[in-house]
């Protein structure tokens, strides 16, 4: 396991209760692990613990087989962290941001120009980062997090501020990194991103992991096996639901396929959002 967390608890100094209340999870090498939950659920706090920004936690956390409490700053040679907000040196150009940053590491680093190109960012552009759009800034933050060729990559809302084209590009980049053996810890409340990318998902609510499984298993677990058919009649578009666990309903479905002018047929498996709503009783935003 690349990450192993047991009974992780954390309380902010001036807080009255624990923000993290005994988290347990493991992440295998090359896995894209989605950490999902609403604002304030403890997602970002967990990421801050794992990136050693918050060192005073309780519980057992092992990363790369080492006790996180004992690792030193060379830990950062092996991880990459992309934040959910732009935190660049705004008076530097994109290349300068990467050039300065890469020199703080003790490991071989990526070519800044190649990284910029891979995320559709300008190479040789004399504009300072302050002049970039939010989407460009976020892609630069993402590029910077890969400069040291991390083995474990922390991503917090990686597609925030991106247009659909760049969101797809970022998802492809994440997938490519995972295929190359990089372990990804993805924090998000965007269920679509999680569904499309993650090998496994943990849903966190009020500091507790309520479920931890693959997106497919999660949806199947809460699936009611219902098919919705839309068909056209003289009165317009109508729809009817058929339960697949009920023989009468199944027979009615077969009959309807033959007798009606069918336009669409969809299974009504729940979305991850539905699963979360059922488990936590509230939405993700």
């Amino acid at each position, binding site marked *: 396991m690349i990450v192993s967390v047991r009974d992780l608890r954390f309380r902010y100094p001036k807080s009255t209760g624990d923000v993290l209340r005994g988290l347990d999870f493991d992440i295998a090498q090359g896995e894209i692990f989605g950490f999902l939950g609403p604002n304030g659920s403890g997602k970002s706090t967990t990421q801050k613990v794992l990136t050693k920004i918050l060192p005073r936690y309780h519980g057992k956390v092992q990363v790369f087989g080492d006790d996180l409490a004992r690792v030193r700053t060379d830990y950062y040679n092996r991880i990459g962290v992309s934040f959910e907000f732009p*935190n660049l040196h705004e008076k530097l150009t994109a290349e300068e941001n990467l050039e300065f940053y890469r020199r703080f590491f003790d490991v071989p680093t990526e070519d800044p120009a190649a990284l910029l190109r891979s995320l559709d960012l300008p190479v040789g552009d004399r504009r300072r980062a302050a002049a970039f759009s939010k989407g460009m800034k976020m892609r630069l933050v993402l590029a910077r997090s890969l400069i040291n060729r991390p083995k474990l990559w922390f991503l917090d809302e990686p597609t925030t501020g991106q247009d659909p084209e760049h969101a797809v590009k970022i998802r492809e980049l994440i997938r490519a990194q995972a295929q190359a053996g990089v372990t990804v810890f993805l924090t998000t409340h965007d269920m679509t991103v999680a569904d499309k990318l993650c090998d496994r998902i943990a849903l966190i609510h009020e500091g507790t992991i309520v479920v931890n499984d693959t997106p497919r298993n999660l949806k199947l677990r809460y699936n009611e096996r219902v098919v919705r058919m839309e068909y056209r009649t003289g009165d317009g578009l109508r729809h009817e639901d058929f339960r697949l666990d009920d023989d009468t309903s199944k027979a009615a479905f077969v009959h309807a396929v033959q007798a009606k002018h069918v336009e669409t047929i969809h299974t009504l498996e729940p979305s991850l959002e539905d699963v979360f709503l059922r488990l936590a009783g509230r939405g993700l935003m």
Partner: protein
Amino acid sequence: MSRRLVHATRLVMTMQWRSGFPQVYMGIALFAIVIFRALVPAEVIPLALPAFLFGEPGSLGILMVAAQRYMERGERSVVALAVTPLTSGEYVSALILGSALVPTAATAFVQLGVQGLDGRVVMVIPPLYLIAVVSGSIGLMLSTLFAEFTRFILGSIPPIAIYSLPFLPFFGLAPAWTFKWIPSDSALVIFGMLARSEVHASAYIASLGLLALFAGAAWWGATTVYAMRVRNELEFA
């Protein structure tokens, strides 16, 4: 000097250049040279020049380092640096030591412009650099303690007032020993000796040594305060 410290210093100086800090220091230095040469009578220079030599890296140094910290805070760039192998001690050192270079050069240029090229230009550089380190450390501590610039301005008045107390003995308004515990006193003693061309090697070395001790203590204080307080900034970043 570690490789990371050198790179962090380069980063600090590049950010300062892009923010126009060196240009401000050099502009003030040029203006000061013109004023000293055109308007200040020769008999006043032994009093006025040390005051300026202390003021540019001293008081202005506090403000400039603080300005850089507030800029970083606005950009949240310190959060990005916190997830690299760069330690907070290395970063604070880069910020303080790097920020001290430009005011030292600019103020030594004033010494050169006002009293000409002689040994005093070389002798003024070490105390200038050390007082710039002390001021940078104070500026860093204050800007780390106060989250907003307006609070910093108010909060920095008492330390700057204390910092300025050695002007009393310098202008003969208090006994010479009164404010030996304040770092600026040692700097003013040296600048005064140089401006009057009355350099006593033992007094120069003793004051420089004391200033070095103060600079070391101020750097340690800034590193400690920064390490403690920046953790809070990161928690809520």
